[in-house]
């Protein structure tokens, strides 16, 4: 794509910059830069954006077992490690579309398991999708239309930083009074609720039961008991009435704050609540949160291989199993003998494991140990162009290059690594074309 850098001495601030650092993917940032490549968010960014855009563009060395090395030597060492791996994995996957594509191609060559660092939250939603389906709406629709938000979760500021400014209480809206959306926050915590919102305190482990009770109340049934998950039934009845009377209600959730063992069950219950409400009015689900382009990485894997992440690629047809190929579990069990970890964006902390590891990371990424090979890579959207997916699943956004980069892109490093590895050793016949 076009080089965004002009030749003038004092580059003007850039407007409409896309932030790649969370799934809100805000695209209205104003970013100033100086000659040294130092960036500064001057308008519209959240605290995280301000911190991460301001990371210096340092030249950085590659390292082999803690010793500085050239990129070529680091790639050779990485290839040597991976060439003999029996159970390799390619994880992290916090990168732009092109970085993820290159990582998946490498995994396919290696016969590796692929998974994203933030896939636990992702798979709550995915497993629910595969059982019940989903009924959702995107940010742009809700900004203009939603007059009621029922939000399950906690720490909304951290997981979906500008949700209230951009979507819940936007400055303008087409089909509702812009500032007037009201709603309920259901989850732990007792801080002040945003304007128009009421907090109903409950542990999120009870979210499935709460959503199920709301479904009953929406259709006029009376759930047994006088409390569900700690919330008084009359309070839930008010939520149900609000959902029934809303012109366009929203049931949203921060997947990362749901019960880690059964987040999918909660999301199935949210979906049933949404479908129930749609019998008489309009209502939509809204998954929130996510970092490191997790949704985008999963999408790329789905379109290229037909399967989501947590699949093994290249060792025969793509093989998907959300439990067996959960990378965190495989690492904990010692089931991986060589790991490629990709962390060009935030949200992919390098795992604390003794598994031999090739790490491709943005400068400044904390490391629990010196990995076998460390190759610093450029940050998408700051150092190079590309694209990422927003967390609501429809919009892919363009990333621009904002400064002169000294580091290679993750895709370039991964492609160079691929070139050092032998082609697939087990040619297999393509499945015959069939028709039904």
């Amino acid at each position, binding site marked *: *794509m*076009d080089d965004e850098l002009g030749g003038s001495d004092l580059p003007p601030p850039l407007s*409409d910059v896309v932030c790649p650092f969370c799934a809100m993917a805000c*695209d*209205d940032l104003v970013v100033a830069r100086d000659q040294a490549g130092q960036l500064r968010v001057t308008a519209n960014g959240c605290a995280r954006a301000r911190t991460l855009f301001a990371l210096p563009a340092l030249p950085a060395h590659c390292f082999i077992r803690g010793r500085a090395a050239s990129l070529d030597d680091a790639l050779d060492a990485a290839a040597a490690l991976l060439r003999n791996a029996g159970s390799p994995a390619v994880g992290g996957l916090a990168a732009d*579309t*092109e970085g993820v594509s290159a990582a998946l191609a490498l995994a*396919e060559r290696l016969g590796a398991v692929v998974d994203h660092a933030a896939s636990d939250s992702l798979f709550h939603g*995915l497993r629910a*999708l*595969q*059982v*019940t*389906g*989903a*009924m959702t709406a*995107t940010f*742009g*629709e809700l*900004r*203009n239309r939603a007059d009621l938000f029922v939000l399950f979760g906690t720490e909304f500021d951290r997981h979906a930083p500008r949700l209230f400014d*951009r*979507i819940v209480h936007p400055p303008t*809206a*087409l*089909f509702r009074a812009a500032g007037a959306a009201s709603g309920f926050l259901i989850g732990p915590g007792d801080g002040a609720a945003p304007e128009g919102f009421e907090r109903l305190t409950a542990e999120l482990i009870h979210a499935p039961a709460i959503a199920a009770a709301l479904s009953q109340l929406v259709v006029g049934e009376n759930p047994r008991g006088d409390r569900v998950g700690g919330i008084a039934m009359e309070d839930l009845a008010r939520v149900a009435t609000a959902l029934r009377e809303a*012109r366009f209600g929203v049931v949203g959730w921060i997947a990362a704050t749901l019960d880690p063992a059964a987040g999918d069950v909660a999301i199935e219950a949210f979906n049933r609540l949404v479908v129930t409400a*749609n019998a008489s*009015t*309009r209502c939509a689900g809204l998954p929130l949160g996510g970092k490191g382009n997790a949704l985008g990485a*999963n999408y790329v894997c*789905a*379109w*290229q*291989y*037909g*399967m989501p992440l947590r699949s093994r690629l*290249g060792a*025969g*047809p*793509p*093989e998907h199993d959300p439990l067996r190929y959960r990378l965190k579990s495989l690492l904990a069990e010692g089931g991986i003998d060589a790991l490629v970890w990709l962390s060009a964006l935030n949200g992919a902390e390098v795992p604390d494991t003794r598994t031999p590891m090739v790490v491709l990371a943005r400068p400044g990424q904390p490391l629990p140990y010196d990995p076998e090979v460390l190759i610093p890579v450029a940050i998408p959207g700051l150092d190079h*162009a590309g*694209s990422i997916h927003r967390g609501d*699943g*429809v*919009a*892919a*956004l363009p990333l621009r290059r904002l400064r002169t980069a000294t580091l290679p892109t993750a895709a370039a490093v991964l492609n160079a690594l691929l070139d050092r590895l032998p082609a*697939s050793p*087990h*040619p*297999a*016949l*393509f*499945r015959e*074309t*069939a*028709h*039904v």
Partner: protein
Amino acid sequence: MSDAYTLLRGGRICDPTGTADGDSLGDLYLKDGRIAAPPPDGARIGEVIDLDGRIVMAGAIDIHSHIGGGKVNLARLLLPEEHRQHGSAPDGLRRSGSGLFTPSSFVTGYRYAEMGYTAAFEPAMLPSNARHTHLELADVPIIDKGCYAVLGNDDFLLERLAAGATQSEVNDYVAWILHATQAVGVKVVNPGGISAFKFNQRRLDLDEAHPHYGITPRHILTTLATSLSDLGVPHPLHIHCNNLGIPGNESVTRDTIAALDGLPAHLTHLQFHSYGTEGDRRFSSAAAEIAETVNRSPNISVDVGQIVFGQTITASADIMSQFRNSGLASPRKWVCTDIECDGGCGLVPFRYRDKAFVNALQWAIGLELFLLIEDPWRVYLTTDHPNGGPFTSYPHLIRLLMDRSFRNEQLARINPDVAAHSRLGSIDREYTLEEIAIMTRAGPARVLGLRERGHLRPGAVADVVVYDDLPDREAMFAAPAWVFKNGRQVARNGALTATGWGDTIVVRPEFDSAIERRLKPWFENHQTVRLGNFRIADGEILDHGRGGLSIVPTLTASDSCF
């Protein structure tokens, strides 16, 4: 550039746009990716392939196939079971992949090429999903591809129409969308209905006022059809009519054709819009009435959206219809999404059963349409992949059209009431090879404005398919003897031999860029993506080394549309 020609010698050249009659033997020269005129004596001939009288056609073109973009990808995620059943390993040439009715991107390109298809058009690209769609299609190898931008439920257009926008303002907006989303056409899906569903309306007829904007589907349709005509976009408005799948919807289909009043238009997946209400089950074929209307309307082209029996998934921007049909989901899971003040998305898995009266009659209705619409230049082979079934069933469908006894054998196997309620068994027509070449190549190329594709005259892109002339037309069309893309052999006897990248085909009509002064604040005040980030730069498609951009010329006053 190379100075050597490739000679395909002694084939029966079946090019309905040329002078060859398909009966006598002819030679075809390929050079630099194009069909070349016979060279002068002494020219260097590189490769010579003896065709021994085999049938030669241009590469086939699929005018309507949901092969990429948000809803297709969500369909893949919804049904991992289908991908577990149909997987393929890497083999040094092919990337691995999976899926039959929502194949992964690489598999999509390989399977099309192996069947002799060299271009396919994704018909339902929501503008807000355009970048994702192009990212996906960039991973579909070999074939050329293009997209139709979906308009007609987007709030910008509806608001402007309600405010009394002039035709020329709408034209500027339509042209801007075509540029910004890198599209080759415009599709309207259930005009006004997708938006009405967001206001909790569950059905919208052609002359029913939209609950918020007060305008009618008729107004949306005719304004958009006029736009494309005014702008000289070769592909006329691609229309998915109101009331898809509802018994009795044949009247809205005929009213839609009447509303167009001679404006060029393409009605898509017509089978789903040709239903009557006769009989005990209040569900009947109106194919004869619809075909007669199409026959009388030279401004109208159609594709059929034939169903084939078996498991598939219906994937549509028409969330109003998909929500209504969600109870039919098999397996019982489905997705509906309201999207960006732009459109929607609905996914309902479905199994067409040959013993079920409704499904069996749908099958018969599609075939009746193929056989009763007289002009093969105006009716194209589609299953509305994956909605009626996978594109890999095209060879089977070609046999059904070319082989009456085979067709009647199939008719005898399905729900027996259908034979009694359909005139299919009494239709003698069998498609000729030339008619197949028209409906799968020359016709789609003409209605898309692809002047360099769909024929074998000198100057055409050298997309060439060679078939063995087998009595079993299904076997013949499933595994062509040779397939050439841009002059290079990519498949032999139905198996891939090489891979590469096709072009993205776009159209770029002129317009007054002042429309951006209206759009920029709209994006800032009402959307969640800024105008500059919405627009897709050429470099986003070109910079990955995965095929070029091919720009379809707009029509001038001297071009006839049909």
